[in-house]
């Protein structure tokens, strides 16, 4: 009898043992490198340590390769269980039915913590298909050294930071004539034709998506007004035509006073030797809020033939954990999108974050439409043609309207 009891105990312990050791392994693809990559790797390690029942296996993919690789994974039926996707491209993927809806796996209270402008874009066709991790809006950087040497300081000796675009242009021209350097610098691709355009267009009262028509309708008059502002800021080489690296180099090396760039630059600028700068929200059209462009890294759950409920649950658990710890992620410059994280001590302790945290709520994300991937590159190209003088403002606006009508669904 005693033997039986012992055997029973041993067997049951073994049985329980296998139960508690039941380990779900999930794969996670990210496109982050540098500082971002380091934080994400730490996230995965910490999560694995805190959750013995789940093992996350992360794979880092070069960001230039990332979407190609994700595409191949999705087509071949071998995607990861969890992956990163920008909300701006979400509709192009969600419309193909490759993302798993996860509303049933996430508590409502958690979703309610999200900024409304962000979580709205994580839906496609009424289904929640992603958990946003951050928002990275366009913000405004100013170089204190350049402004001081141009004499652009107020009575208290503080550098003059423009509140309106009129001031931005006037003071930028002052810098140019006082120092011979540039008034401002901005990348000629996404930053100029897409991000700055969206900020200005929304500040002028425009909105891309027309609810009634159920599609994007661009107002040619507003677009022309936007292009006028952009053109004036490029006139007389106050702003040079340059790419991302070139524009950043001008700002860092004290050759440009103002600089329009995403918040991700905050991962670099505070530690850049010799750079004395400030950061704030973008200037605004008079009478408007400083609306700005924003995108968002979100966590998606690709559909795959061998997807199980266990894996999906584990994947959502991991995603939720990462979002809840996004004050760490904010070290990379990105703004958290959960209100309690935005108000958390950990986040506010980071340097200069208070100077631009309001940009998160003023961020306008790309409209939820199919074809955005192609349309946004047309936006870049049209604006480049404008600033190199191949298009007039009117032609650029007309071209933009034509492209929206022919590409966006």
């Amino acid at each position, binding site marked *: 009898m005693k033997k039986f009891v012992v055997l029973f105990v041993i067997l049951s312990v073994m049985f329980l043992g296998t139960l508690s050791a039941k380990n779900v392994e999930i794969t996670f693809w990210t496109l982050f490198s540098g500082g971002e990559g380091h934080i994400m790797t730490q996230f995965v390690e910490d999560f694995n340590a805190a959750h013995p029942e789940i093992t996350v296996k992360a794979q880092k993919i070069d960001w230039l390769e990332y979407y190609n690789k994700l595409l191949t994974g999705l087509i071949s039926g071998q995607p990861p269980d969890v992956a990163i996707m920008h909300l701006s491209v979400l509709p192009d993927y969600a419309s*193909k039915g490759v993302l798993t809806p996860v509303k049933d796996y996430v508590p409502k209270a958690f979703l309610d913590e999200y900024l409304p402008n962000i979580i709205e874009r994580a839906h496609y066709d009424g289904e929640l298909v992603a958990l946003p991790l951050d928002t990275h809006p366009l913000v405004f950087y100013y170089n204190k050294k350049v402004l001081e040497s141009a004499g652009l300081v107020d009575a208290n000796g503080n550098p003059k930071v423009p509140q309106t675009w009129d001031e931005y242009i006037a003071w930028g021209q002052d810098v140019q004539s006082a120092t011979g350097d540039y008034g401002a610098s901005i990348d000629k691709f996404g930053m100029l034709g897409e991000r700055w355009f969206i900020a200005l267009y929304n500040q002028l009262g425009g909105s891309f998506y027309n609810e009634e028509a159920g599609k994007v309708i661009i107002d040619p008059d507003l677009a022309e007004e936007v292009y006028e502002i952009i053109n004036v800021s490029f006139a007389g080489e106050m702003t040079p*035509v340059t*790419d991302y690296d070139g524009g950043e180099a001008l700002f860092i090396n004290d050759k440009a006073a103002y600089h329009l760039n995403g918040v991700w630059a905050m991962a670099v600028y505070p530690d850049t030797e010799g750079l004395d700068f400030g950061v704030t929200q973008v200037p605004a059209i008079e009478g408007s809020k400083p609306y700005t462009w924003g995108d968002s890294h979100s966590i998606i759950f690709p559909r795959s033939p061998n997807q199980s409920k266990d894996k999906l649950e584990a994947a959502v658990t991991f995603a939720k954990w990462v979002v809840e710890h996004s004050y760490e992620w904010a070290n990379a410059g990105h703004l958290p999108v959960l209100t309690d994280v935005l108000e958390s001590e950990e986040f506010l302790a980071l340097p200069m974050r208070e100077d631009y945290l309001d940009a998160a709520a003023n961020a306008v994300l790309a409209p939820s439409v199919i074809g955005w991937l192609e349309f946004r590159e047309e936006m870049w*190209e049209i604006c480049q043609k404008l*600033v*190199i003088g191949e298009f007039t403002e009117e032609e650029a606006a007309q071209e933009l309207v034509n492209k929206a009508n022919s590409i966006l669904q």
Partner: protein
Amino acid sequence: MIVTNKKRNNTLAYLFFLPFGLFFVLFKIYPFIRSLYLGFFKWDIFGSPEFIGLENFYTLFGTDKFWEALWHTLYFTILTVPPLVILGFLIAILLNSKIKFVGFFRAGFYIPYILSITVISLMWKLMFNETFGIVNKITSIFGIESINWLNDPSYAMPAVAFATIWWTLGFNIILYLSAIQQIPDSYYEAATLDGANSWQRLIHITVPLIKSTHVLVIILQIIYSLQIFGQVYIMTGGGPGGTTRTLVQYIYENGFKYFKMGYAQANAAIFFLIMLGVAIAQVKLMSKRGEGY
């Protein structure tokens, strides 16, 4: 007896061909045929292809961007082929003469070709930078006003062409050098005895005797130049305002960025026809070779 031997030889030949042939069919011929086939379909990669006949081709021929990209590709080819062939030949002749440090120079001209496309593109992008780049620093010595090389439509493509010439010249030099070295010295000795000067020796001996190498270098160079993509993509991104977008970039963007696979395949088919034309020209010209030492 002879017949069986021949048969056995054939079998053996096929066996030797098999390992390569298998991969060639699987990864070149099959995708190629499938690509041509998909040109007649509307396909977004995820769903199933939908047959639309010649519509992709109609759209393609009616799209300004396609014609612009075709012109940019030809423009780049025009900018790069003559200098790469002529310079390649002239430098090969110099490197074949008895100058000091010839090994050093030979290596020096070839080294850029070893570098990867990303490295040379990023390097030249930095050097062409308007404010900080070394190119403007040098031209400013001669009083030339600084030029925004990669962001000015008139200079962007020539700048990319220049970087490409610097990068790939070494390959043509090697081809020419090996051809020149195969010409027997006795020809030159005989010519010298007859009183030919070095210019005459070059024009009447070297140039005609490496005719097939000229054809090879020119055709290869045209094919390489038509395939231009990486340098442009990294240095200018096809900009400013799409003025350096080439055909391969256009195909890549439509296929892999905008999910318009069928349309991209149709474009690739047209591109293939252009290349085929060049290749046929090569075969025709090469078969007319008549040299022998």
